[in-house]
């Protein structure tokens, strides 16, 4: 808090060192809640004298992390999860964006499907697991189906919303400039809907990642969900928590390194699009 209020006052005097310290403090701010949580966790472990059967110490989790990482076990499970979310994202975008487009440009179809898509959005991917397991067994196909479903619905929905939010006059003005159908798609609808598509992608990847972990826990064909659920069998709390932390960290990395930069790029440039 003090860092942010002090910054403007110090800035004019501004040596590079001050700026560097300030930005380092800014970075620390993000880590503060994590440090606090770890401290509370450790305090509870010591004060309540909990056995390792109930809760392990952060140090034990660190050791488990080192062990899992050094034997390549963690990389194995994590890469399975990442591969699944990657494949699902590509398929969902390739199929979902054109569907969202087709629905968005057709007013009747958009009206007809809006309620249906909202209905589907309320049925989480996990709710489809029983059916998917009956149809596809305990296989990676089941996991893929669940994750793609979770991803594709928000992508279709947001693409549709994005296309519909484009002012009608954009297309009319372009038709007066002699634009044909293909031109309207490439010059109006696609760039106009892009920020909304990215929002859909971001939401979808969030839902998809959660659904993926849940599906892996039931399907047990690899992945971080499989890792933590398997560890439960032998009460390996250190492994469970290690896996959970990895699930969170990987998602932040995916979001911050891939999805958010795309969003920032489109929104910052086109300003007007999101009011």
């Amino acid at each position, binding site marked *: 808090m003090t860092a942010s209020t002090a910054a403007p006052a110090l800035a004019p005097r501004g040596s590079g060192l001050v700026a560097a310290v300030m930005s380092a403090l800014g970075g620390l701010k993000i880590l503060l809640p994590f440090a606090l949580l770890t401290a509370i966790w450790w305090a509870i472990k010591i004060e309540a004298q909990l056995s390792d059967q109930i809760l392990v110490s952060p140090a034990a989790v660190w050791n488990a992390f080192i062990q899992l990482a050094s034997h390549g076990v963690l990389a194995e499970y994590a890469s399975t999860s990442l591969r699944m979310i990657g494949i699902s994202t590509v398929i969902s975008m390739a199929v979902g964006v054109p569907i969202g487009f087709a629905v968005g440009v057709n007013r009747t179809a958009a009206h007809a499907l809006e309620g249906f898509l909202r209905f589907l959005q309320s049925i989480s991917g996990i709710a489809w697991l029983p059916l998917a397991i009956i149809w596809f067994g305990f296989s990676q196909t089941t996991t893929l189906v669940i994750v793609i479903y979770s991803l594709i619905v928000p992508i279709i929905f947001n693409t549709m919303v994005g296309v519909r939010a484009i002012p009608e006059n954009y297309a*009319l003005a372009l038709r007066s400039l002699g634009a044909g159908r293909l031109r309207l798609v490439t*010059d109006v609808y696609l*760039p106009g809907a892009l920020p909304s598509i990215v929002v859909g992608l971001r939401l979808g990847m969030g839902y998809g990642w959660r659904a993926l972990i849940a599906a892996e826990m039931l399907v047990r064909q690899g992945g971080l969900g499989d890792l933590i659920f398997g560890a439960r069998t032998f009460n390996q709390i250190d492994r469970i928590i290690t896996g959970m932390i990895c699930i969170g960290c990987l998602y932040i990395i995916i979001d911050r390194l891939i999805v958010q930069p795309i969003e920032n790029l489109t929104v910052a440039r086109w*300003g007007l699009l999101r009011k």
Partner: protein
Amino acid sequence: MSARAISADDKIVVSGFRHFFDTADGPVQATGTLDIRIRAGEFVTLVGPSGCGKTTLLKAIAGFIRPTEGTITCDGKVIRGPGRDRGVVFQELAILPWRTVRRNIGHGLEIAGVAKAQRDETVRRLIALTGLAGFEDRYPHELSGGMKQRVAVARTWAADPDVILMDEPFAAVDAMTRLTLQEELARLCAATTKTVFFITHSVDEAVFLGDRVLVMTRWPGEIKARIDVPRRERGGRDWESFVADAEMQGIAEQVLRLVRAERGAAGAAKPSGAPT
């Protein structure tokens, strides 16, 4: 001025036009019966109370809607859809926010497949004409309202249509900027030969810009009066001399009375569902 005989230099001919919109409650009348002729190179302004059907008429000339009754022709050919020969400038900024000023203005030429060198040349000329120099690489959200409207006008002129349709293009900008934009438009029209059909609800704007002013009745709108505005010279118009010109002020007063008579009568006859 009363009805003229059909002549060869008629650019746009609206005959027996009447339009109804389909709604869930059945058809809703948008306009009365309209007959209008616009000569090539003429600047015609249309004033009328809001909701009288001005925009519907403009959209029909643009080809965005098919007339329920009557026909509209451009160069003797019936209008069946939008086309490059009829440019439109909208009140709501219809320039694309993801394109820079330069790429917005050159968009029509890009669509027409004009070579880049020639396109750049045209864009440069229009940027100079509309006072946008220095803003070529800005995005619309970085511009003021007046600047954006200049981009919209320049984009339409760059595509070089014969006819330009303008639907209250300056209604959304502040009053001072509007005066400047109107003077610039008059100058631009003098520098190029375009047939312009310009919708407004400002009497002064209609008389200042128009070679001829059409006054529309309240909904369902019909043409109530057609008033010629004599110009001593094309272009070079400015608001100071317009305000000082007794003849112009006389015309403006005449138009104002015609429009006010409609305003007074409006309201009761217009259903809430009628389009604006």
